[in-house]
């Protein structure tokens, strides 16, 4: 009974003797081809020494939820953060198998990919309820005012889930962090290049702030 009471007390006050969090689910959300899987690979390579997901220039490469358990990161002060990293399929409002054919896939492959992608979007939305913190990964070269972005962030806000916006692909000339910041002024925005590792140290520092 005493054990149960203490467990409840620790949970209530989010207290951890080792100053180390566990079982925190950190989700990567965003539209297709924003760089969620590239960022997942960057995090896993930096801290686990192995990649997590496959990446492709063709949209909807990630069609299933991928979870990497026990990702442990450290900041400059020596503080540790352990979380399960959840790489989700890109959320879209339309999926056209003919777009995949244009990218060189066969009709059968394209239809299969489209079907899997629709299921992936549904799963990603359903998993929103399981998240403790979310990084919304946006392509900083694209218009941030898309309704998909607004819907994702609005739903996270409605669920009181802390959000960090990663404006990805800042290595590209067309990118603009300022436009992303102007679109979502109420959220922290960090410009990164997941592919080349630009600004990722600052990104990790921000993770400590949202993964509380």
């Amino acid at each position, binding site marked *: 009974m005493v054990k149960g009471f203490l467990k409840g007390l620790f949970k209530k006050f989010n207290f951890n003797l080792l100053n180390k969090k566990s079982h925190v689910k950190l989700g990567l959300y965003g539209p297709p081809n924003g760089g969620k899987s590239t960022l997942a690979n960057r995090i896993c390579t930096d801290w686990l020494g192995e990649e997590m997901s496959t990446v492709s220039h063709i949209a909807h490469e990630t069609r299933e939820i991928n979870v990497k358990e026990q990702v442990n990161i450290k900041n400059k002060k020596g503080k540790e953060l352990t979380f399960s990293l959840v790489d989700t399929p890109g*959320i*879209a*409002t*339309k*999926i*056209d*198998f003919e777009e995949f054919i244009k990218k060189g896939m066969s009709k059968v492959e394209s*239809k299969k990919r*489209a079907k899997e992608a*629709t*299921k992936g*979007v*549904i799963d990603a*939305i*359903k998993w*929103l309820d399981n998240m403790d913190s979310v990084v919304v990964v946006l392509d900083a070269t694209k*218009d941030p*005012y*898309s*309704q*998909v972005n*607004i*819907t994702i962030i*609005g*739903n996270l*806000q*409605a669920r009181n889930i802390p959000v960090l916006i990663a404006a990805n692909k800042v290595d590209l000339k067309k990118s603009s962090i300022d436009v992303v910041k102007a*679109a979502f*002024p109420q959220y922290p925005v960090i410009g990164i290049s997941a592919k080349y590792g630009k600004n990722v140290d600052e990104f990790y520092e921000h993770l400590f702030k949202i993964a509380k």
Partner: protein
Amino acid sequence: MVTFQFIPYQEIQQLSSAKRVNKLLNIVKEDRIVIMEGRLRKEEEADLIEITMEEISPKFKGIELSVIYPDKTKQDTLQVVRNTMATILLGDRQGFTIIGPASIVKKIERNPDKIELFTREIARSKLKRR
């Protein structure tokens, strides 16, 4: 030809979330572009995407969706209070929601106070001109 269908807020006000979403989606599946007074709740927008995904087939490729909504940061305190009261009493009638079938609407750009709707026909004719 592109057909627009206006949905006044009172038409969806009494409906449950599921019925609202299905009503809108059924209109879009008939190749019409919905212009709805007000907006869906955030959770309903996610439901709309989820149900759209369930309905996708070789014939129905999904939707294009955009909401134009007054920027609350540009409103003074009195306006915020007045609009909040109106929302409590009458529902969230502010703004407009546009939902179109992806086979007709190529993209909707919000910039952020105006909406530009690009149809597939316009996109094709522009390509031909080039």
